């Protein structure tokens, strides 16, 4: 069973196609990651799921109800869309009380979520005095207010300090383990890798990948990062390895060689053969970031706006 299902979901803004015939299903329970370059259509998808905007074509359902009737599932969904949105002149508590009234919730839920995100003691201060991190915590509190079955969080750790990031990641994992479904949209791929069980990648409004995180990580390959004792030798080392048939790319201050750990000794010998002594040789796995860049290409999505998609529309 899927918590979110879309079929041929398309949304155009004038000449721009933000979502292009997107068909995907996200599983119930656990944490699903939604990733894609800037302008890939992530926010458009979230807004359609929440009933904020309507699709141009195709359909979608959330918790079994069509997005054309968001009232059927709104009470079971908690959201943090883009940046946390509150009235700055009101206290954190008053902002949450206002939402609790709207959702017909008992006011003890306000105390519960304030405690859950660690804002007890600061809740009577106007939101205008809050740091970005505190606003983010308040945004997550608002999303948790209705104790929802489905949480949709856009960049949930944006602005948090390292301890706050760890805390919120743990909270998301707990929610997923306890039968809730959490959809996290994020640019921080380390965050997606750390908390998600399922991954969905979109680019130019099209689905690139949807599947369990374990399947994504199967795509990882071993590589060996090497560096010469003298930086001036790096060019000679790279040329010698390429001539020897190794697949080499320069990454920061090392050469990344696509090779399994078992070939480390061969690689060391090859370096010696071109007269270079290695000061570093580290075997590692590709990160999600590298897999993501391989899937989506190394182009900033927004800078690529205006690029013509396969069906002749202009992707956003």
């Amino acid at each position: 069973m899927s918590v979110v299902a879309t079929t041929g979901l398309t949304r155009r803004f004038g000449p721009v196609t933000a979502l292009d015939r997107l068909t995907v299903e996200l599983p119930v329970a656990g944490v699903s990651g939604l990733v894609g370059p800037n302008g890939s259509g992530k926010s458009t998808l979230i807004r359609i799921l929440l009933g904020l905007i309507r699709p141009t074509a195709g359909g979608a359902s959330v918790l079994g109800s069509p997005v054309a009737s968001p009232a059927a599932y709104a009470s079971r969904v908690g959201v943090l869309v883009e940046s946390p949105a509150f009235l700055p002149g009101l206290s954190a508590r008053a902002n949450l009380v206002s939402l609790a009234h709207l959702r017909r919730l008992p006011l003890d839920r306000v105390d519960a979520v304030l405690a859950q995100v660690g804002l007890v003691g600061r809740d009577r201060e106007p939101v205008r005095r809050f740091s970005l991190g505190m606003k983010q915590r308040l945004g997550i509190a608002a999303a948790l207010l209705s104790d929802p079955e489905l949480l949709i969080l856009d960049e949930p750790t944006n602005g948090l300090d390292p301890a706050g990031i760890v805390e919120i990641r743990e909270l998301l994992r707990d929610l997923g383990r306890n039968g809730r479904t959490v959809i996290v949209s994020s640019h921080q791929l380390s965050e997606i890798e750390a908390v998600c069980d399922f991954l969905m990648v979109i680019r130019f409004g099209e689905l690139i990948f949807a599947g369990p995180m374990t399947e994504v990580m199967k795509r990882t390959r071993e590589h060996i990062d090497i560096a010469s004792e003298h930086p001036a030798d790096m060019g000679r080392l790279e040329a010698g390895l390429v001539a020897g048939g190794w697949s080499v790319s320069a990454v920061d201050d090392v050469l990344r060689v696509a090779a399994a750990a078992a070939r480390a000794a061969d690689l060391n010998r090859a370096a010696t053969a071109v007269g270079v002594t290695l000061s570093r040789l580290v075997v590692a796995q590709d990160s999600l970031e590298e897999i993501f860049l391989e899937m989506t290409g190394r182009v900033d999505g927004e800078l690529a706006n205006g690029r013509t998609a396969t069906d002749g529309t202009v992707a956003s």
Partner: protein
Amino acid sequence: MIPAIRSELTRLRQPRLLITWFALMALFAAMVNTIMVSFVSGGGSLPPGAPGVAFPTRAGLESASGLMAGLAAAANMFGVVTLSFWAVATASDYSSGLIRLLVAAEPRRWRLLAGKVAALLVVTAAATTVAAVVNVFAVFPAAGAAGISTAAWGTDLVTVVATAWLNLFLALCAWGVLGLVIAVLTRSAAVSISIGVGYLLVVESLIKMVKDAPSDWLLGTTLSSVASGGTAAVSYGTALALALAYVTLGLVLAGVVFVRRDVTD
């Protein structure tokens, strides 16, 4: 709809917003009463098309209803203040991005809009009361200083005060709805206030100054007539009917746009 009203009332409890709104109502009530009494006692007359004020005659001011004449005289000024605050309360949902959370929590958008209107009516009633109270406290010393007779002002006091309050409240509701409609359309408080004030101070005044221009149906004139309980040019019933038509038209327009438009803020 009750949850939407309670939610909106909580959001309206912003100290700066309410203090500014009520302070401006009090300021205009005090200011207009002082100027009005001084102006009437000096036998002055306003030029045609003077924006925002309609002073009574000396006889009118010294009659029983003269006690509350300041409310009607400044009705359009109060109206602009009310328009501005309805616009701010509406547009801030867009500028803060709160509209995303509100619509996600209550997708039946007409309920959100109706809740906002109902909550703003409650605060407008409070603002009208502030203006009425300050009016009473301001007009007595002003009349005493200007030699205006106050002998008739205690006659039928409750009816006079209640009628003046109700007429001003009705007019302010219409002004407020106008602010809300412009704010829903433009999603900007600054633009909404500029359009509202610009219309009253520039457009309507210019139309009134054009000789033989039919101006009795204009919004400011109509709502001023409602606040005054009718004028020689426009009866109370006609003014009320016109105001109701403006309000209905505005609410339908705002409702259709609010319900159908994508939330992209």
